C-alpha cells in the first residue's frame, strides 16, 4: 500500500496532456476519475473475455458470469450485507426509481413520504411522481439558514407525521454536507417508516457499513466511485427488496413465460431484466479492489486535510460566501462571490483550466431555500493534492480580477 498522495499516479487522466494546457479536476462530485486498474479491467474484458452472462454454458460465458457474481460479492462485503441484497442497476437514479416504482403498490392515499430539503432531483422527483399517482403527501425535512439539515425539527416532523418512507441523502451533492442519517433512520424506524438512503456522493468517501447504518435501502452510482459509467447499485434488506415490484420486465428476471402466465425470479434477478452492463461490473470490481487497498482512515485524514486547506484559502478571499456544513463534509465546497453570477466566474475558471461545476447542481429546491440561483462547486477526491488547490485559488483570484471592469 502506497501513501495516498502517490495514488494519483494511478490515474491516467492526470498524465495526459489533453489540451496541452493546465488541467485541474475539481469536479469529482459530477463523476470520479478512473484508476488504470479499472480502465484495464474493462479493456481486457472486451479483448479476452467478452461474453454474455447467465446465458448458456460455454466457458467464456461461464467465466464472465463468475466474474460478474464475484463483483456482487465484493460490493456486499464492502457494505457488510448479503450478496443477494445487491442489485445491479444502471445508476443511482435508476436505483431510486426502482424503489419508488416498486413500493408504489404498498402505499395508499394520504400516506406521507419525507425527503430532506437537500436532495438531488433524483431523490425528489420519483417520490413526487409516486405521490401524484397514489395520492400520497410529500413532506420536506427542513434545513437551517446556512443549509444544514435541522435535525431537531426533522425528527419531530417524522414523529408527528408517521411517514411511510423517509428518503435522504447520505451526503449532499450541492454542499457536501454529511447528513445525520443515523438519527433520521432511528426516528424513521420508530415511526415504522421505510428508509431510503441516497449514497451517490457518500459511498466513495465514507464506505458505509450498512448493517450498522441499518437503513432499509441504499443506492449509489459506480461512476462516482472510480467505476465505469452506466452502472449503479441498489441495496435493500432482503424481504423489503424482494417485496418490490420490478420496474423492467424481460429476459433473466423471469422464471417461466407463457402467453397465459408469467412468473418472476426472486431478488436480485427479479430487478435485472435484460443483458446487464457486464463490462462496467467487471470494471467496478477492479475499482472496489482499488478502494479496498487503501486504508480508509488514512484516506479520510488525507481528504480532510485537503478540504481544510481549501476552506482556509477560500476564506482568505474577500467576498466569498460559503454554503453548507463545513464541519461534516465529504470535501465539497459550494460558494459564490459577492453577488456576481456563478456563470461568469465558472467561465473564467474554465479558461484557466479548472474543471469545477456551477449552477443549481440538480438541487433547485435547495437553491431556492438558500435564496440563490446557483453556486460554484469544488468537489475533491483523494487523487487531488495541494497543488490543485493552489492552482484553483490562483485562478479564482485572477477570475475575480477579470470581473472588475
Amino acid at each position, binding site marked *: 500500500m502506497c501513501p495516498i498522495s502517490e495514488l494519483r499516479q494511478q490515474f491516467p487522466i492526470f498524465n495526459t496532456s489533453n489540451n496541452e494546457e493546465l488541467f485541474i479536476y475539481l469536479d469529482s462530485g459530477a463523476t470520479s476519475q478512473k484508476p488504470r486498474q479499472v480502465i484495464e479491467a474493462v479493456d481486457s474484458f472486451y479483448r479476452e473475455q467478452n461474453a454474455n452472462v447467465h446465458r448458456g454454458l460455454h466457458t467464456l460465458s461461464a467465466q464472465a458470469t463468475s466474474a460478474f457474481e464475484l463483483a456482487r460479492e465484493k460490493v456486499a462485503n464492502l457494505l457488510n450485507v448479503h450478496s443477494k441484497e445487491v442489485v445491479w442497476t444502471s445508476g443511482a437514479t435508476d436505483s431510486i426509481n426502482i424503489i419508488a416504482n416498486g413500493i408504489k403498490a404498498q402505499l395508499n392515499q394520504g400516506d406521507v413520504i419525507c425527503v430532506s430539503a437537500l436532495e438531488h432531483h433524483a431523490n425528489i422527483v420519483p417520490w413526487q411522481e409516486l405521490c401524484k399517482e397514489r395520492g400520497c403527501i410529500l413532506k420536506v425535512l427542513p434545513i437551517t439558514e446556512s443549509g444544514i439539515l435541522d435535525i431537531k425539527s426533522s425528527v419531530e416532523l417524522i414523529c408527528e407525521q408517521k411517514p411511510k418512507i423517509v428518503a435522504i441523502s447520505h451526503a449532499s451533492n450541492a454542499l457536501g454536507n454529511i447528513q445525520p442519517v443515523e438519527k433520521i433512520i432511528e426516528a424513521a424506524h420508530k415511526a415504522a417508516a421505510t428508509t431510503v438512503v441516497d449514497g451517490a456522493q457518500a459511498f466513495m468517501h465514507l464506505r458505509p457499513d450498512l448493517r450498522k447504518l441499518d437503513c432499509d435501502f441504499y443506492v449509489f452510482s459506480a461512476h462516482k466511485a472510480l467505476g465505469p459509467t452506466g452502472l449503479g447499485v441498489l441495496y435493500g434488506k432482503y424481504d423489503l427488496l424482494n417485496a418490490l415490484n420490478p420496474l423492467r420486465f424481460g429476459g433473466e428476471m423471469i422464471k417461466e413465460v407463457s402467453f397465459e402466465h408469467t412468473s418472476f425470479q426472486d431478488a436480485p434477478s427479479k430487478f435485472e431484466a435484460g443483458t446487464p452492463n457486464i463490462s462496467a461490473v467487471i470494471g467496478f470490481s477492479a475499482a472496489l479492489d482499488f478502494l479496498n487497498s487503501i486504508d480508509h482512515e488514512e484516506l479520510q485524514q488525507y481528504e480532510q486535510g485537503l478540504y481544510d486547506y481549501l476552506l482556509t484559502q477560500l476564506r482568505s478571499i474577500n467576498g466569498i460566501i460559503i454554503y453548507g456544513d463545513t464541519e461534516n463534509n465529504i470535501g465539497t465546497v459550494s460558494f459564490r462571490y459577492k453577488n*456576481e453570477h456563478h456563470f461568469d466566474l465558472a467561465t473564467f475558471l474554465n479558461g484557466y483550466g479548472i474543471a469545477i461545476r456551477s449552477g443549481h447542481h440538480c438541487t433547485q429546491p435547495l437553491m431556492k431555500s438558500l435564496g440563490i440561483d446557483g453556486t460554484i462547486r469544488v468537489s475533491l477526491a483523494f487523487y487531488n493534492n495541494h497543488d490543485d488547490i493552489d492552482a484553483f485559488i490562483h485562478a479564482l483570484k485572477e477570475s475575480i480580477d477579470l470581473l472588475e*471592469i
Partner: protein
Amino acid sequence: MTYKEFKEKLSNLKSWQLMYREIMLLGKSLPEMPELLKTDDVLIKGCESKVWLRVELSDEQILVLIGDSDTRIVKGLMGLIMLMHQSKTPEQSLDINTYHEFEQLGLIKHLSPSRGNGIKAIADTIHEQVKQWL
C-alpha cells in the same frame, strides 16, 4: 461602434481574458432593459443563464433590439448579437449567420456546447420574429 469595428478590435487582442473583457464592457455599455419589459414571453429557452430579448420593427422598417441577461458574459454576447442585427432591415438580418460569425470570432471554441446552443437559440429567436415582417 459598428459590428465590423468591434470585430476588428477583438481580432487584435492577444488573450481570451482580454476578449472577454471587451465583451463584458460591450455588455455593460448596453442601455438598461427596464425590469417591466423582462417578461416570461421574451425569456429565451435553451440558455443556462437568463436571457431576455425583444425584437421590434421601427417606423423606418428597421430592427430595434433590446436585450439583457443576468450574467456579464452573456450580456456581452447579446451585445455582439445586437451589434450585428441592430438597425438592419428584416432582409439584411435574415442574411446574417450569427453562429458562423461567433465561430469566426473564435468565440465558439471557448463556449461549452450548452452556450453554443444558447447562441443558436438567440439567433433563431431573432430570425423567427423577423420573418413576420418580410
